[in-house]
């Protein structure tokens, strides 16, 4: 069923009892052309673009839990493309452009809100670094600008920009096309669109082994039995190393908990996204009125999906210093997701030493913004058995060749 104002009216007249399921829940077939491991945003986007751009529809997406229950449902929903290096800028900008047309493309409102993303500068070095980055970003044809203190204050009146502040605001970079989107809607919309093109989405199906024959992948062992496949794509953020180890592949990835939290809902006070790399904090206000805040990663490896209290204490101290008005708010929920971090803070979207096995991971703390772009280039990589120009630099071999894409400066915490 196509969602439209007419279908809404028609179903309203039927007391909304006639809506069909957004996607099927089929039993797994014994064999697929492509099996995607991981039913988060990136995996679903991969399946969708495999079907849409490459005509490969005999595809299964295997998810051990439920759709979007991992990092897709745990991030702070920020979207932007203000990256320093050309390789990253092109990849993330491609993703942002896909986001801009995604609601129409998949006939599902992902509630994209391009409310702007501010990155604060608290000292002279921050300001010079942001200026340099803004120049580089503009040379790549991506919108970005520098604001001075008065402009930042005018845009965000509740920000403590006084000279006496612990973190004085000397300026900020602004990407107006940046913003937020509804993360669940991204997962559900992509699932529905992929399903409509014939992709089988199979939840509660955990992959326990990767079957190979003479250096070539032939299928996956799952909790619902053996599923044969010509090609297998691993898109299991947080657990990329665990899946890769099943095929004997070592990765440069380390998994860490990353925490976020939301406040009780309040009236609109913050109409943009404010990030500060220097104090490890970022905040926006959701459509429900909750303030959504994110912290830095925990310092040690972990798969526990819960982080350490000192990390969020540090982040909240900074937020309250920057926004004194928030000091009396109560926090409602706090959670952690497991992010897989690469040494150069850039993802791996790559072929592997195993024929027919592909890996998309290592997105660190910044995967959500890349969801459609990541799926788009990964679908190309799988379908053509070679990377697209947009993800050629993000191969696994760069850790041997030394051609790293070092984005630590562009991302820091709030990736």
């Amino acid at each position: 069923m196509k969602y439209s104002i007419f279908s809404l009216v028609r179903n309203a007249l039927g007391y909304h009892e006639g809506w069909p399921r957004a996607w099927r829940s089929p039993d797994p077939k014994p064999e697929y052309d492509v099996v995607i491991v991981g039913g988060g945003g990136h995996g679903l986007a991969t399946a969708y673009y495999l079907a849409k751009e490459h005509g490969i529809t005999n595809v299964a997406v295997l998810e051990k839990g439920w759709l979007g229950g991992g990092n897709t449902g745990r991030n702070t929903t920020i979207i932007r493309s203000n990256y320093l290096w050309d390789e990253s800028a092109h990849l993330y900008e491609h993703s942002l452009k896909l986001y801009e047309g995604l609601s129409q493309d998949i006939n599902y409102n992902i509630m994209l809100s391009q409310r702007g993303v501010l990155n604060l500068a608290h000292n002279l070095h921050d300001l010079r670094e942001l200026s340099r980055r803004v120049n580089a970003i503009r040379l790549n044809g991506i919108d970005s600008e520098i604001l001075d203190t008065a402009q930042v204050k005018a845009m965000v009146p509740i920000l403590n920009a006084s000279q006496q502040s612990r973190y004085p605001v000397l300026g900020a970079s602004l990407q107006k096309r940046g913003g937020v989107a509804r993360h669940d809607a991204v997962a559900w919309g992509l699932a529905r669109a992929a399903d409509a093109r014939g992709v089988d989405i199979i939840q509660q199906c955990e992959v326990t082994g990767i079957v190979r024959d003479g250096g070539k992948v032939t299928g996956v062992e799952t909790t619902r039995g053996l599923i044969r496949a010509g090609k297998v794509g691993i898109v299991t953020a947080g657990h990329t190393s665990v899946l890769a180890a099943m095929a004997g592949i070592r990765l440069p990835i380390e998994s860490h908990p990353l925490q976020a939290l939301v406040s009780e809902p309040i009236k609109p006070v913050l109409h943009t996204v404010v990030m500060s790399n220097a104090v490890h904090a970022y905040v926006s206000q959701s459509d429900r009125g909750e303030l959504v805040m994110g912290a830095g990663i925990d310092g040690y490896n972990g798969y526990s999906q819960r982080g350490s209290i000192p990390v969020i204490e540090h982040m909240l101290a900074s937020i309250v210093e920057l926004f004194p008005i928030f000091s009396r708010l109560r926090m409602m929920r706090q959670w952690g997701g497991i992010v897989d971090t690469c040494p150069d803070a850039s993802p791996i979207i790559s072929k592997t030493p195993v024929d027919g096995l592909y890996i998309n991971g290592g997105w660190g703390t910044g995967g959500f913004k890349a969801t459609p772009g990541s799926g788009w280039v990964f679908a190309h990589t799988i379908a053509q058995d070679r990377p697209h120009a947009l993800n050629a630099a993000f191969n696994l071999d760069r850790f041997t060749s030394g051609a790293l894409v070092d984005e630590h400066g562009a991302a820091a915490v709030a990736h």
Partner: protein
Amino acid sequence: MLSIPCPWCGPRDETEYSYGGEAHIVRPEDPQALSDREWADYLFMRANTKGAHRERWVHSHGCRRWFNVERNTATNEIIAVYKMGESPPGDGTGGDGAP
């Protein structure tokens, strides 16, 4: 908040410590003799174990000494603590483990 037992100072909060990553990665004797792939494996590749993980910690805000911890990365249970130069408990190497 983890409570980590320093072998010299006893149990302290995790905020007193810094993390040193996977333990028992030995720096190659002769890096020049390695291929790029072997060097990349030493430099970048990590087990990133889900479960019992042997790792290094330093008591930055205490005695400032390094030591090894075996911790379950899925549950954060600390399984064992042992000093630098000691082999992990229960691995049967007889005490000549790498630092």
